[in-house]
Structures are given as structure tokens and as C-alpha cells.
């Protein structure tokens, strides 16, 4: 194929280097196919090959602008998917230990979790969940943490209300557990902040070297 066309495509390829290989190849394949059709049309209109390629590349636009626009749309989609995934993971991290100790291995609670240990466990779980949310969706942890929190909180409160209605004499330990969850929520954001600091710290020497 024509040298100028290959040069143009390799410039786009370089600028799209941050995209996953499959996505990048898809974009390049489509752009190449479009440019080849433009060139064919220009030749059919009486241009020689040089002119046809130059005209097509001029009409297609700057490689920098195209690549940066493509990257931003891909990034948006990826970011949305990552945010949803982080939310699901955080939700699972918060629900799973409770589910296991209450329903699958109830005996574990007697062995492992004294009331004090349970508070520590909750605090650690929140801290870790924030750290993991920041790994999955960097700098976008607000929704992945807050939405599952509201769901867990709403589920917990409904349980409290239903329990009190069904057994008016029961204790309010469920409610105190919900209050504990609210109190440890900032730990999730602390976990995310710790992760952010770690990444920043790791990147600093590289930036100086550049």
C-alpha cells in the first residue's frame, strides 16, 4: 500500500497505544478500510495515486485529534464498566462475610467473632473494600462505595423493622450493627486514599526520570 497511508495509520496506531490490542486493531482496520475506499473514489474521479492519498488523508483529518477523540470515548465506556464492576465487588465484599457466618458456617461466629472482633472485622472489610474499589475504578470510587452502602443499609434497616414488627421484644442489636456500618463508612474512602497514595508514590521516581 501507499507509503503516506501507512505512515498515517502507524501514527494513529502509536497514539492509540494505550488501548487494549484488540480494540486498537479494530479501530485501525475500520479506518484503513474507510481510507482505501476514499482513495479508490479519488482515483476514479481522475486523481493520480499520490493526489488521491493526499486528498483522502486531508479529508479524514488530523491523526492526533482522531486518536484522542477515540481514546476518550473508549475510556468513557471502560470507566463506566469499571465503576459498575467496582460497585459489585464492594457490595460482595460487604455482604459475603456476613452471609457466610450467618447462613453457611454459623458455627464460625462462635469460634472467630466475639462482638469486639466483629467490629474490627467490619472496619477491616470497609478499609479493604475502598482499597480494591480504587484499584478497579481509579479516582471514581464515590459511586461504587456509596451505592452498595445505601443498598446494604436499606436491607439492614428493613430487617430491623421487620424483626421488630414480628418480635417486638427482640433486642436492637441489628440497629446497632447498622449504626456501626455508618460509622465505619469513611474507612472505605480511607482505603481508597491509601491506594491512591501508593500509586502516586510509585509513579514519582519515574516522572523525575522522564
Amino acid at each position, binding site marked *: 500500500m501507499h507509503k503516506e497511508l501507512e505512515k498515517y495509520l502507524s501514527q494513529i496506531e502509536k497514539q492509540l497505544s494505550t488501548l487494549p490490542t484488540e480494540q486498537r486493531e479494530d479501530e485501525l482496520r475500520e479506518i484503513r*478500510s474507510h481510507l482505501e475506499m476514499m482513495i479508490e473514489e479519488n482515483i476514479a474521479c481522475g486523481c493520480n495515486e499520490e493526489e488521491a492519498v493526499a486528498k483522502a488523508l486531508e*479529508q*479524514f483529518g*488530523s491523526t492526533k485529534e*482522531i486518536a484522542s*477523540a477515540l481514546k*476518550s470515548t473508549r475510556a468513557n*465506556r471502560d470507566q463506566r464498566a469499571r465503576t459498575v464492576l467496582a460497585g459489585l465487588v464492594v457490595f460482595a465484599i460487604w455482604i459475603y462475610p456476613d452471609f457466610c457466618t450467618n447462613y453457611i458456617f454459623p458455627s464460625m461466629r462462635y469460634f472467630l467473632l466475639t462482638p469486639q472482633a466483629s467490629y474490627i472485622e467490619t472496619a477491616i472489610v470497609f478499609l479493604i473494600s475502598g482499597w480494591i474499589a480504587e484499584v478497579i475504578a481509579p479516582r471514581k470510587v464515590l459511586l461504587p462505595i456509596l451505592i452498595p452502602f445505601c443498598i446494604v443499609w436499606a436491607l439492614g434497616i428493613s430487617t430491623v423493622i421487620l424483626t421488630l414488627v414480628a418480635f417486638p421484644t427482640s433486642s436492637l442489636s441489628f440497629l446497632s450493627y447498622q449504626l456501626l456500618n455508618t460509622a465505619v463508612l469513611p474507612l472505605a474512602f480511607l482505603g481508597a486514599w491509601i491506594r491512591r497514595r501508593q500509586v502516586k508514590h510509585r509513579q514519582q521516581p519515574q516522572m523525575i526520570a522522564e
Partner: protein
Amino acid sequence: MRSTKTEYNRDLAKGDIPTLILAVLAQGPCHGYAIAREVERRGGEVFRLREGSLYPALRTLENDDAISGQWQETSGAPARRVYSITEKGQRELAQRTRAWKQYSKAVNAIIGGKPHAQRA
């Protein structure tokens, strides 16, 4: 005197490209190159489409589930990614069309220069 075509030969605004893509796809599935040609043909070459800007707009519409794209192999020709409009895209097009009509009506009212007395 310069022709109207030359006077208004300008690059399309980026925000208008998705509307034009949806309008073209509402007539039937197309690949990127065919969309560009159709926009040019229907627009009477009044405005110029930087064809590279078509693909980010197509990606955005795909991300919003307004269109869907699939690679299609045809014998003797290179594979092409063909796009078609979804139901969500049809709704989006109707909404964008309404907004555009409102906008152009307002601009026409201003540049038409009707005096206030006549409007009343």
C-alpha cells in the same frame, strides 16, 4: 458573485454529527464510508465532514446503545463494520430532531427579521 455552496462550505459542528449519523442509519444499515457519502449527498455539499470525526461519534453512539456495529465479510471485498440503529437510537433521533427544529425555528425567526408589530 460567489455561490451559496462556497459561502457556507464549513466543517460540521461535532455536536451535530451524531444526529446526522442517526438520520442516515434510520434509512438502513451502513458502514462508515457510506454514512459519510450519504451525509455529503443529502447535505448538498454545503458543509464538510471531517471523516475521521465520524468514528468517535459512532463509538459514542455505540456506547449509548443508540446504534450497534458488526463486522461483515463480503466475498471479494474487505470486511466492513456495518452499523444499524437500535430502538433507543430511534427515540434519540426523534428527540434530537425535535430539538433541532425548535432551534432552527428560533434562528429563522431572528434572521428573518420580522418586526415585533407583525408578530403580534
